[in-house]
């Protein structure tokens, strides 16, 4: 990668360090029921109401795998352009914790369902490829609640057994910005595929962040620390920044970096060691004897491939080729599948003589602004793609001006009103009758004789004054282009 302005380096005296980051993303699989049991996965249920005997690890209860979760993992693998492993094995990761009822987590250790793949990031200075090491399926744990009681910890097992995809990247990321772009891209791909809703507030997407630092230009990897379970992009960036600086300071002081697991304290904005838990960590992975190897054949995989929608990278390419969008515009429009869908619907509804540029501007401008201010997803947009297309066509064919369009747009929000109707009802149609406009302009010139003379004598600035007066007199509805023409002729 070429040297660029956004390169993230940490400087101390004469030394420059670069940071090496790898991510283990835990993405909750979108499915109705859990990975190995038939209880529900819905977010926000009353505590322990979505817990089966299997999830609570009752004696003699056994896991039976959910086919849909397997398909979701493979689809995600396809979306990551990764190798799908036709044979994978579930292992037990053994450790004791209050919210881990079995005393082990069923995961995939040696033989994951998905192997190496890649993700392309669109950075301001160009594209960057990030390697994917693997994707495996595993169970989520329950939730321990420490602050409901001074002496006890409360345990809610609703999440226990929910399917997760753990997506492990190669240590290819070099800055908090790249991490942000990576998470967003991953989330975008999974939303396109419908395999993970990517909702970070609800914990559907979390990451363990592996951070190490090294002298700029060095090829060796430094000792890494793993920051566990960070659940927002902002916190990931803050944690990386803190941790990288902490490690650089240790190196500068000649102190060793311990390979350890750390926790990001969001209140103090610092990472801190979890050493108390670390001593006893020896997960004793071994193949789960309650399960058999998971085998899928080519036919199974090929069938899933036919289900894969056009993904962001391909869509972006198509938008650029077909609609002549800039790379920047295309990136914005494809990042969220719903936005891309909305955009394409507007294009279709605009019909033959369409102004794509105008559509892009209205979507990324006015529409995004109101969605932002109202905190709405595009799928909840108060203005339908169809009506926005009509509005844009009204501008394009000269029925209304861009300025009036903004007024119409405001009015459309109330119940997704048809802009055509608004224009008619409120009489907002642009005045494009040259005769009427000439009469109107004659009157203005007459009323402002002195200014007209000044203009003729060379005070060209006054042209704007006459335009303004004409617009005002027409209630803003006059066709500005016509006004210009007539004024030039008459003055």
């Amino acid at each position: 990668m070429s040297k660029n302005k956004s390169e993230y380096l940490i400087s101390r005296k004469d030394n420059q360090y670069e940071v090496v980051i790898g991510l283990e993303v835990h993405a909750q699989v979108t499915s109705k029921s859990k990975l190995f049991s038939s209880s529900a996965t819905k977010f926000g249920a009353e505590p322990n109401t979505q817990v089966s005997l299997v999830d609570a690890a009752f004696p003699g209860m056994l896991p039976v795998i959910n086919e849909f979760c397997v398909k979701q993992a493979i689809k995600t693998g396809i979306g990551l352009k990764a190798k799908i492993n036709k044979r994978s094995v579930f292992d037990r990761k053994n450790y004791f914790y209050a919210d881990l009822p079995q005393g082990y987590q069923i995961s995939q250790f040696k033989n994951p369902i998905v192997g190496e793949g890649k993700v392309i990031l669109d950075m301001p200075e160009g594209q960057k490829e990030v390697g994917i090491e693997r994707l495996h399926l595993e169970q989520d744990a329950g939730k321990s609640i420490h602050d409901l009681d001074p002496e006890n910890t409360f345990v809610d097992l609703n999440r226990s057994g929910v399917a997760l995809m753990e997506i492990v990247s190669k240590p290819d990321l070099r800055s908090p910005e790249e991490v942000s772009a990576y998470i967003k891209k991953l989330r975008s791909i999974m939303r396109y595929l419908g395999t993970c809703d990517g909702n970070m507030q609800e914990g559907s997407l979390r990451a363990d962040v592996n951070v190490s630092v090294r002298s700029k230009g060095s090829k060796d990897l430094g000792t890494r620390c793993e920051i566990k379970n960070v659940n927002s992009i902002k916190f990931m960036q803050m944690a990386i920044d803190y941790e990288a600086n902490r490690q650089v300071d240790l190196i500068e002081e000649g102190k060793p970096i311990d390979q350890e697991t750390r926790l990001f304290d969001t209140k103090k904005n610092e990472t801190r060691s979890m050493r108390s838990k670390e001593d006893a960590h020896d997960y004793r992975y071994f193949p789960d004897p309650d399960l058999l190897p998971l085998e899928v054949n080519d036919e199974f995989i090929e069938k899933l491939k036919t289900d894969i929608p056009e993904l962001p990278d391909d869509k972006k390419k198509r938008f650029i080729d077909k609609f002549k969008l800039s790379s920047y515009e295309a990136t914005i429009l494809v990042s969220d599948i719903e936005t891309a869908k909305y955009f394409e619907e507007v294009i279709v509804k605009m019909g033959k003589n369409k102004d794509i540029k105008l559509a892009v501007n209205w979507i990324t401008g006015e529409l995004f602004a109101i969605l932002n201010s109202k905190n709405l997803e595009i799928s909840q947009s108060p203005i339908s793609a169809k009506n926005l297309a009509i509005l844009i066509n009204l501008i394009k064919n000269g029925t209304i001006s861009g300025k009036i369009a903004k007024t119409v747009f405001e009015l459309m929000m109330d119940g997704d009103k048809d802009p055509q109707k608004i224009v008619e009802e409120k009489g907002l149609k642009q005045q494009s009758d040259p005769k009427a406009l000439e009469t109107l302009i004659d009157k203005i010139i007459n009323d402002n004789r002195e200014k007209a003379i000044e203009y003729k004598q060379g005070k060209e600035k006054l042209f704007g004054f006459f335009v303004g007066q004409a617009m005002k007199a027409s209630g803003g509805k006059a066709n500005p282009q016509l006004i210009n023409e007539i004024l030039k002729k008459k003055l």
Partner: protein
Amino acid sequence: MSDITKQSLSSLVKNIKDRKLSSVEITKAFIDRSEKSNELNAYITEDYSSALDKAKKFDQKPNLDLKLPGIPMAVKDLFCTKNIRTTAGSKILGNFIPTYESTVTQNIWNEGAILLGKLNCDEFAMGSSNETSYFGNVQNPINKNLVPGGSSGGSASAVAGQLTPITIGTDTGGSIRQPASFTGTVGLKPTYGSCSRYGIVAFASSLDQAGPMAQNVEDCALLQEVISTYDPKDSTSIDFKRNEYSKELTNNIKGKKIGIPKEYRVDGMPQEIDELWQKGIQYAKDCGAEIVNISLPHTSYALPTYYIVAPAEASSNLARYDGVKYGFRARGDDLIEMYEKTRSEGFGAEVQRRIMIGTYVLSSGYYDAYYLKAQKVRKLIKNDFDEAYKKVDAILTPSTPSSAFKIGEKKDDPVSMYLNDIFTVPVNLAGLPGISIPAGHDDKGYPLGLQIIGKAFDEQNILNIAYSMEEKIAFKNNISDWWIK
């Protein structure tokens, strides 16, 4: 009708179907005898009064098309039974009442049988003498102070002592066949995947199998027919075509090739065991079978392999007993202290020993040397059988290297205790079916068993061989009812 409890299952079923006996009569008879048999300590939990209620209900509207119409039956306390305490012989589950039923027991109730109670067993099925049960050791009806074998010791004792007409046990390394051999009864360990493990307290998942224990081969076949079903709730349950084992039972085994593995003639094997084996070979010949000498070269590695694989799986399977969701909890000031005390006080010594072994062989730095090595040797052991079965239809061996021993005799020497399973363990490692039938007595008059090992899913064949040999052997169990005062 007198001596109801002396009758075989098959004759009880016939008597019910012929309306010569009612379910209440039969149930009462077994309850009466069970109540007089407390000294055997075969039961952990009795459920007599609801058994009688169920029997009355059955008699009011008897469905005689069922395979076990109104037949009372006690089962090993490793099977979860809905609303009936299920302990696995452990303090840690001493107060556990499942809200669900194991598939195997459900199959039994679906065929009309009635639960009498839950039978004693080694704690979490870990043992070969039923001395590790939190609820005390079980006496062998053959002789006072003799172990009944284990881990299905309560089951073997209850069948031999006629406290139940038939029962089910579980077999991880010999836990059905060895106690059957020690008590002069018949015990079948089915092919791995034949009987569902759903609702059975797990010991070692890749080895555990439920199976019938009975007075004779025919009864055994009938119960196997009932309990062996494909179960989607168990991912290791196998969907294969199951026979109607009792209907298809035949004593015609002419031309069947029976293998005799030379490696089972182990060092220090008592002469009486070897003699029994030779007699068995003669019986098989008399039945028309052809005897073929075979080799299972990795036999002597089976027990060391088993004592890695089984504890490894157990150490993980038993992690769920942590005092959080159910069962015993000791006081602790914090979570970790609670865990450590709960598990230290809740598990007995043998269970703790095996959890430690299992934890060790899986731990970082030892996995390859022990666990992985054991999995590879397990493959070699399975290959041995695959090779042998190219030449033979079944294999005949002794069931155990000795007759039943005295209570306390091997309690403090784990390795000598483990050696009990030397002939049964390879069968579990290879996932094959094996049946033990009583075949003679030692010089003390204690019963000795022979084991017939089959190909995977070939239960019918070993049942047939056992059935035909049983006829020739004409074994009589010497039960003196010494414990009934």
